[in-house]
């Protein structure tokens, strides 16, 4: 995709409780998932307490591990949902 100099807006849904906390973030073009996480991790106790391996990040309905992990580039309008890991059902 052609790079532009315009900043991008990404929606973050933090599932630290049943209904997510929604945060809208403006990022530099070319920003990656790790840039976004670095930007928010200090502001949320939930993120401060949990390490990368304890979190499940879903970008537009896909786990980031099925994309390019924390290196996945972000685009304008992306939605990133963040959950504590869970398993079994």
């Amino acid at each position: 995709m052609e790079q532009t100099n315009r900043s991008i807006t990404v929606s973050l849904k933090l599932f630290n409780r049943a209904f997510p906390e929604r945060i809208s973030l403006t990022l530099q073009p070319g920003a990656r998932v790790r840039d976004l996480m670095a930007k928010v991790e200090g502001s949320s106790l939930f993120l401060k307490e949990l390490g990368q391996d304890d979190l499940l990040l879903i970008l537009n309905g896909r786990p980031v591990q099925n994309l390019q992990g924390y290196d996945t580039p972000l685009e304008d309008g992306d939605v990133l949902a963040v959950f504590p890991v869970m398993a079994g059902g």
Partner: protein
Amino acid sequence: MPFAFAGKMLHVNLTTGEIAPKPLDEEKVLKYLGARGFNARLLWELIPSGADPLGPENVLIFGTGTLTGTSAPTSGRTTVSCKGPATGLYLKTSVGGHWGAELKFAGYDYLVIEGRAAKPVYLLIRDGAVEIRDAADLWGKDVRETTRSIEHALGDPDVQVACIGPAGENRVLFASIMMNYYNAAARGGVGAVMGSKNLKAVAVRGHGRITVARPQEFRRAVLDAVEASYQDFSAKTSYLYGTSASVAVINELGSFPSFNFRSGRIDNAEKISGPFLVEAGYLKRRMGCNACIFSCHRYCEIDSGPHVGAYGGGPEYETMSALGAGCGTVDVELVIKANELCNIYGMDTISAGSVVQWAMEGYEKGIITEKDTGGIKLQWGNPEAILGLLEQVARCRGFGATLAGGVRRAAKSIGRGSEEWAVEAKGLEQSRVETRTAFGYALAFAVNPRGPDHLHTQVLAEFGTRPGGRALVAKITGDEKYAFPRTLEKRADIVRWHEDCYAATDAVGLCSFATTARYGVTPELLARMLSAATGVDFFESEGLLLAGRRIMNLEKAFNVREGATRKDDHLPYRLMNEILAPPSAKGDERSAAAAGRPDAVKEQIDSQAYLDRMLDEYYELHGWDKNTGLQRCKTLGDLDLGDVAAELDRMGKLAKE
């Protein structure tokens, strides 16, 4: 008394009234590891091919795990096995709680029920003493009333009761056996088999103990297993929020079966999630099975409103989808109430929800009308429809009698294309996993001997979302890159390893959450605990996984003997022929293929050709014939199942070498 075992098995013939305790052949049990494995061996030996699942020649076996009754973490599992009435094939159901440990404390590792009582009876086992008692007063009672009546009659609130409700008495083909109110041996109709034997309950009380061969070594292995289990953070979320913790995640992935699998998401799914149960005050207690270290089980109650007073265990993730989103509702109180009805009438919530949503879709399409339902309007999410139909099904009344046979039989009876939204294979309703978007799961569900569900082979590792899963996939396939659910590559290898491990887990008596969901208890740790407990040293991990494969092959052979072939290893029509909407338009653009995954052939499985490729690889990996799906003499011989091969050979049901 042998180490780890109580040392006896109990045969009860309800036709003749004979009660026969027999010494346990531990060597033979350990060849199949125990529980699910030894049960499968007994089924093979005791049930003649072609037997009517609801006839007296079927047997119902309660088999405890070899480590059940010890302190091995999550070792509270018991396997209930029989020929399944929904599928006419092999059936095992694994159940938690405390009943199995109690049976061992009462002196028995296995209970084998044969024949059929002339009138309703229940079985009482107290410290080795066994009685067949009249159950005329219990017949017709629900699970709660039955359990309470027995506790009261014995004057012992600690008695462990396994019983059926009206659904089992009425032979609903997805009737469950409920253990001590809240733990369900649910899938495939084990409750109908118990009902067909006129057996209302098995009450157990014991004061014995289980000893292990090498206590110090066992203790060290147990502590290592506990520590390893807590490494994965999901151990904590499991305690906090139970299995329904996953609802919002899976909805976000667009894979939360909703509206009878027509959609992979539903608005406001958070309202039927584990965190919501906590925050809204429905969760009253967290509960664990015997020797559990996670306590994922829930106890919920409704304090006000139209369903005030409804209570029970769960609802689990599966129930939230089956009785909630699948029926088009996120009304959590309605789900708690519907779950309560299933638990007290003794029905599997997955299949019960499946028949309701199948009927709702038929109603929407005008194929099922109020004339059929006796006036109930089956709109999506209608509380009267969900609760009303569950009542009718349990009693086999009105339209419920049509639904009581499950969706395959109901669709056959109604016809008019309704088979296409009957989400079943082999006659079993699919559990609430969206197999279109997870290729390993699709393969595992297609080949599962009991039908399409996740409790035979749980391949969570293929998602690659957690370090433990990625490491496991790397160990199985040689490369972490295969921890990716949208490729056909290496699915057969991943599925087979999980089959082996899951079978060993069930047989030893542990919960799969400790092994293939949380990865903490590895086959090596399982083997260490088993060796130290039994004093038998041949369980190095390869041996354990091979024993798992022996179990799997024996289960497969049971089905082959009943006439099953490759054509039975398929998936529900809808999940093979209809495209699921992607989780978001963005998500579709940002497809896995576009993210540098050339092996991501498709975003979802949408044709038989994809499944066939995985099936070919899977059969070849097993050493089975890929055209027929039949086993070979050598494959079975290598697993020390020569006598099984010989019998199949006599029937002409072995593949050519």
